[in-house]
């Protein structure tokens, strides 16, 4: 199975989120009150590590294992970024979870977060359904 390598990488990613306590509601409140370096330390090491990897990929014009030339991701601005990101921030502070941790919290045995996850699916569905009514 070709996709098993992504499952494996997901396990490592999920372990890092869980053992790094980025899935902890307590850590998220602490972060939003600027009372510990912990979460900022995660971001401030994650982003440069990723950036260094991307720099090397570009510098060496690396190809993926599947043989494709790797395209470094780009993100396009639209005003929805501001509105959507604020709304997501509200939800992040309430649930203590961004989408990655939504999965990890369920796996971590907090089964009631299946409800949080389902509500997130519903939120995505409502956005999809009424996308054209919202300013972009």
């Amino acid at each position, binding site marked *: 199975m070709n996709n098993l390598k992504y499952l494996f990488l997901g396990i490592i990613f*999920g372990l890092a989120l869980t053992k790094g306590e980025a899935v902890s*509601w307590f850590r998220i409140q602490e972060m939003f009150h600027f009372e510990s370096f912990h979460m900022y330390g995660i971001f401030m090491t994650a982003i440069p590590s990723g950036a260094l990897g991307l720099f090397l990929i570009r510098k060496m014009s690396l190809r993926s294992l599947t043989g494709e030339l790797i395209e470094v991701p780009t993100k396009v601005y639209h005003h929805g970024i501001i509105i959507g*990101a604020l709304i*997501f921030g509200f939800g*992040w502070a309430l649930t203590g979870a961004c989408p990655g941790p939504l999965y*990890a919290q369920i796996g971590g045995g907090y089964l009631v977060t299946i409800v949080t996850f389902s*509500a997130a699916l519903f939120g995505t569905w409502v956005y999809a359904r009424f996308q054209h009514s919202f300013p972009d």
Partner: protein
Amino acid sequence: MEFLSKPWPWYVAGPIIGLTVPALLLLGNKRLGVSSTLRQICAATFPGKISFLNYDWKKDKWNLFFVGGILIGGFIGGTVFPNPEPVQISQHTTELLRELGLTDLSGLLPQELFNWKTLFTLKGFFLMILGGFMVGFGTRYARGCTSGHGITGLAALQWPSLVATVCFFVGGMLVSHFVLPLILSL
């Protein structure tokens, strides 16, 4: 197995999270982004006639394997090898949460708030249902979440992702400071 039950310091967890971005690109030219799996699951289950949900979601099946992995990682790290100690949050935060009425600060989430009984109260509605809804709605509106914008976008030096990440934090700070105390006093 002590390294699995102990929490990992930020300088261990952070680089692993960040290196996932180049690792996915090297493995198969894939982009780290978790919130798009929410769209995928909607497309696979209730697409209706919604154009945003009628696309070839199977093409990104790899991402469902990836988030399946996150769930298993959470299971290994949180259920099989849970940290026996409470999360070591700062003294200030501990005092603040106690003032807001929390008594049990053990585990990854406050179990006195996140449980099936609370779910059917106004408090539970705000924390789990409205909170979850805003996570799903907001990330799709912003076209990315903490992984897609905060980690991938910033590592790729994309300024729109910086705008997004700043707004994630502004939104979170507003609610954590001013709204959460009101909800917890319900």
